[in-house]
Each structure stands twice: as C-alpha cells, then as structure tokens.
C-alpha cells in the first residue's frame, strides 16, 4: 500500500508546492515596492474565498477517504497463515520463535555475527505475533515498508508475504535505551523447499540440545 499512497501524494505535494512558489515568485516580482505603484486597498475576496474553501474541503475529503481505505486494505489479514512466528524484542536484540516447533533464533546484536536472522519462506502467508520483554520496541523492515511497536504484556499481530528471495536488513525503530542503535536483525526469504529443510535441521538441532 505504501506505493499506492506515496507516489500520488508526492505528485500532489510537488504540484501544490510548485503552484505556491510560482504565485509567490510572481507576486514578489510584480508587486515589489520599486515599481512605484500603490498597494491595493481591497482586503476581502468573499466569493473567491468561499470557492477556494470548498475546493480545499473537496480535496481533503477525497484524500481522507483514500488513505483510510488504503489502511483498511493494508490491515486486513491475508488469510490462513502457513507459518507463525513470535517476535520478541528485548534490550537490545530480537528473538524469533517458530510456532509448533522447538526452534527459536536469537542473538545479542553486539556485533555483525551476533545479529539474529529471521528465515521465512516466500509466497506463503506468515503470521507474526510481536511482543516486548521489557520496554517499547519497534520492529521495522524497510524492505517491506512495514513496522509495528512491541509492547510488554501485549501481542500485536500482522501478516506478511514475501514474493522474492533475498536478505533484508531490519531494526528497532523506537528508542529503547542505551544500545538502541545496534538492535538490528536480518530477514532472509528463501524458497518454501529451502525453508522446510532449514526448519527441519533447526528442529533436529534444538532436539539434540540437552
């Protein structure tokens, strides 16, 4: 939905900005004191004001409906999830727990090798439950144009689906104390087959752990 709103909004914003700058530039050149004219004595344009106000209300109403419906579409659950993951934010790293398996991926975020990797399959609906173990964090994956805050004692849930494989950087986006700036994670989207074999290997490793 980001692109559906961002580009129309950017075009509208640039248009409005352009119009205002042009009118401003015109008035500064045309009505500068050096031209030896007198300032207009008029201080009301009632009809123009009313028409302009109506146009504004019209544009604002359109935008309001547009963004509200974009949000409704974006927040709608995608369907029956194939994979469910609980994300826990803590000071100062992440852990990812795969439901119905003993697999939990975590790290300390202290250096690049300690950044936890969230492995997900492409083309499948993934259901995330997001919680914090301490303060308010925020799970942000810029590639997915998506973030949500993690609260202590409350699960926020959302669905995501990835269409292409790859590794994407994510991070905490709500200031959460001293080492907020290193609270990173990686999301690795792999093919469903690769995901299944990864999860099986992880399950075996988890089971063999004492």
């Amino acid at each position, binding site marked *: 939905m980001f692109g559906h709103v961002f580009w129309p909004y950017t075009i509208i914003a640039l248009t409005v900005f352009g119009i205002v700058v042009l009118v401003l530039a015109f*008035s500064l050149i045309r*009505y500068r004191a050096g031209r030896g004219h007198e300032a207009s004595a008029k201080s009301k344009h009632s009809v123009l004001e009313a028409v302009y106000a109506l146009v504004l209300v019209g544009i604002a109403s359109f935008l309001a409906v547009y963004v509200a419906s974009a949000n*409704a579409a*974006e927040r709608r659950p995608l369907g029956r999830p194939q994979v469910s993951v609980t994300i826990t934010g803590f*000071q100062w790293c992440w852990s990812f727990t795969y439901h119905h398996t003993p697999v939990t991926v975590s790290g300390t975020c202290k250096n690049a090798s300690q950044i936890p990797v969230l492995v997900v399959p492409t083309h499948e609906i993934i259901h995330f439950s997001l919680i914090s173990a301490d303060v308010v964090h*925020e799970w942000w994956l*810029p590639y997915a144009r998506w973030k949500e805050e993690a609260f202590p004692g*409350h699960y926020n849930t959302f669905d995501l689906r990835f269409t292409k494989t790859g590794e994407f950087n994510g991070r905490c986006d709500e200031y959460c104390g001293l080492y907020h*700036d290193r609270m990173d994670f990686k999301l690795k989207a792999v093919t469903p087959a690769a995901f299944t074999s990864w999860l099986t290997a992880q399950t075996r490793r988890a089971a063999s752990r004492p």
Partner: protein
Amino acid sequence: MTVTELSARLPKRRHKQISDILVSTDHKVIGLLVLGTAMVLFLVFGAIALTMRADLASPGQNLISTGLYNQFFTLHGSGMIYLVITPISLGLGIYLVPLQIGAPGIAFPRLALFGFYTYVVSAVLLLSGFLTASGPGSAGWYAYLPLSDTRYTPGKGMDMWVAAATLAGFAGLFWSICVLWTALRMRAPRMSMLRMPLFTWSEVVTCLMGVAAFPSLLGAMGMITAARIDPRLFTSDLPNLQYQNLFWFYGHPVVYIMFFPYVGSVIEVIQTFGQRKYVGYTVTVFALLLFAAVSMSVWGHHMFTTGQESNEYFAVTSTALSVPAGLEYFGFLSTLIGAKIRFKTPMLFALAFIPQFLIGGLTGIMLASPSLDYQFHGSYFVVAHFHYTLFAGSVFGFFAGFYYWFPKATGRMLSERLGKVHFWLMVVGTNVTFIPMFVMGYLGLPRRVAHYPAQFHLLNVISSIGAGVLGLSMVVLVVNVGESFRRRVPAPADPWDGLTLEWATTSPPPEFNFPAGIPPVKGFAPLFDWKQAKRDPDRTPEEISARGAGYVHSRGDGPAEVRRPAP
C-alpha cells in the same frame, strides 16, 4: 525642609535596578525576561544539536559516547520544545498582546512572573542533570513508559528531567491563562473580538490549546513520577499505552502552540511590509479556530504503529488539517498579490517561511496516512518533517517577528546588512541540513542512533555541513544584537510604518504603554485606518480623533509626541 526639597536631595535613579526588573509586574519586562532566557537556551540546545551533527558526520564515529549522544538528543528535543519554542510562543504573547489591543498591562501579572520563575527552575533542573553521576535524562523528549521508569532509566538526572518537564508544563499553563484572559477581557474600547489583530488571534487560539493541553502533560508526568516510585505499576500493557495517549494529547496540540504565534508574526510582517491590510482576515480567524479545534483530535497519528489505535479515524482528522492550513496560505498569497512589497529583513524571514513551512506541512499530510507512516514513523523522514515545521517554519517566523519587534522592545535598530547575512546563511543552512534527512528516512535510517550504516555517510556529511552554516548564522545574529546595543541607533516609535497599535506608542513603550492614548479602533488595523483618515481631506479632525484622546502620531526620530487630553 519641604517634601520637594527632600526628594531633590535623594539620589536620582537613572536606570532600573536588577531587583526592579526581577519583581516587575510590567508585562513588557516579564515578556522580555521570558524571551531573553529562551533565546539564551536556544543557543545552548542548538550547540548540543551541532555537537550531535559533528558526531554524525562519520558512520562509526565516537566523538561523544553512545550514552552521551542519547542524553544529547533527549536534551535537544526536550529543551527546544519545553524550554525554548513554547516559552517564546507565550512570551511573545505576554509582551505583545497588551500592546496590540491597547491595554495598559497583562491580566494576572504576578502569575505570569511566577510562571517565569517556574520556567527558570525547570531549565536549571534540566541542565543540572549533567552534574549528577548518571548524567541528565536520556529517555527522549516523549519519554515513553516503561523506558522512563527506574528499572530502565535509573538515576537522579532522569528524576530531574521529569521535574523539569512538569514545571515547564505549569509555566505554559500559567502563561496561557494570563495571555488568554488579557485578550478576552482587557481590550481597548471598541476593539471587538473581530477587530483584534491577527497576531493576537494567533495567541488566543494558542492559549486555548494551552489550557487544554498542558494539564495533559502534567498528567503524563504524574504517570512517570508514579512509575519512578513503583515501576511494578507499569508491567502490563494498558498503562504504558495510556501514557502514550495522554502524552500525545498534549504532544500534538503543543506543535500548534509552537506554530501559531509564528504564523501570527508572519501575518503582521506581511501586511506591514506589503503596506496593506491583511486580505482574508475573517477566513484566517476561522482557519485558526478550526485548526485549534481539529488539532485536539489528531494525537493518535503519533501512535499509528502501536497496533492499538483507531488509525482510520486519526488518518481522517489529521488529513482534515489540510483545510485550515490551506486557508492560511490563501491569506499569505492573496495579501502579497496587490501589495507594495518592501524587502526588509523581517519580510525576508516571513517570505522564506511560506515555502519552507509548506514543505513541513505537505510532508505532514503525507504522514497523516497510516500506510506511509508504517514506513516513515520514527525515521529521519519524520525528523526532516518536524524540523521543516518547527525550524524552517516556526523559527523563521520567530526571526521575522524578532527583527520586526526588536526596535519596539529595545528602542534600538538592528543592522539591516547583518540581518540579511543572517537570513541568507539561515536559508542555505536550513535546507542543506534538513533536505537530506527526507532521503535518509526514505532509505530507512531510523532517528536517535549514534551510529549508522555506511550507505548514509554522504547524506549525513551534507546535513552536518548545513548545520555548520546554521551555527555560523547564529554567530551573525549574536553580533548583530551586540552591535545594536553598542551603536545605540535609536528606534523611532513607528520605524516600519506599522498598522497595529503597538506602533502607536514610543519604542520602548513606557509603563502602562499608551500615555498619549490610542487612535480610534475601527478595525483590525487601527493605526493604518487612522493614518488613512488623516490623509483624507474630507475628514474633520474630530472624526479622525474620534475618542478625542488627542493622539498624535510621529514617524520622526524622536518618540511619539505626548499630548494628554485636557482634564
């Protein structure tokens, strides 16, 4: 020895003593105390920002430690919002509203003075956090719970931060009450509400929001206080979420408290240097009131990503703000079209305000869309957005007002040449500093990080160079003010050919403001109307001086002539 002889022997007081100034009930003295303190703090918290920008010039640099960086952005945000821009908003009201409405003083002057001392203690508390072992508060300016409780941010410095924010909230509340009551109850005869100058109107709506919003800040600070006494109260979800609701119920209106008086300043400057009455007065008053009303129900857009907010409702209300904002722009532009524009320093700042604030406003409408906020919330895009509103907007509006009213308040002229140097440095510095931040946010850089990935290096270097230019511009400002006091070029009563009543008395105005009376009030620009009437050969002197107050206006170098009506 007679009384006269006795008094002649007493030493004459040539200047006001410091003690007189510190206990004065004159609104001008209180206003200047607030404004002067706030401007000093502006330089302090600006220097903190420059240190951060120096640290950010390189991705992994540790010019200051991560802990100190966190304290610095907390102090920069808290300081600028609680102790600089909000106090300047209301300080301008304390100084100017009585002068604009022809009143001899402010309502409840002792409460306003008490507010000043509350404010000073707040500033001292916030900054003296540096003297504690753990340093000053470091939970950010909105200090979300449970981060700001004693489990996660222990230390006396954070306690002092909470006390400082509480006292700043009280000061804001006191000043809002004083300025609001002054405008509502102390206007000159015949000055109806719809004849108040637009700056005064901007103060009225500011104070309306102030009396509604500051108590909410006090409530939020009460929650943090409770959490610092017993953090176990904040282990479940609801209180932490409700803190955010309570805080932003203050936190959103306050961005308009930090905006309207500067719009008011820009409006006054545009009509004075455009030499005509403001076009669309009624529309602008309506827009301000609509703005204030809607702004009380948009706070949830700060919480779009909490997953626990009515996003669609707040998207609609926030988008609706484009209507009053658009109406304000109608006033700016339609006054300029057909004006006779003089490009003095105040006017330059006012003109730059128009496109620069527009960038902040348009990106604000973008951020009112949850779909965009799911990417931009907490990123540098937001940092760029609110610096365009608060710095490229409000601070430019403030400097428009500063250069405009400085001669009135001090009785001294500033240098036009240095003023223009200050202006151009600030325009370049502002845009070079903040434009790259939009790009950084779009590319995924979060705010409040001391270190960042190398891909953002170049953009950060550009931004830091811009910040250096801004630092330089403030040096020029300080030199200009210093030179003004050294050179002592006296300011006439009405140096800019003003339209409103503050230009109808001496510079600076005497105690009780209008010894010569005021021109008759027949509209929102009484002095302009009076000057027009005086030029009209068909009018009799009695018509011109309708109140018979014998008001005589002087544009010469001396103070306005004082001719009291015969008793």
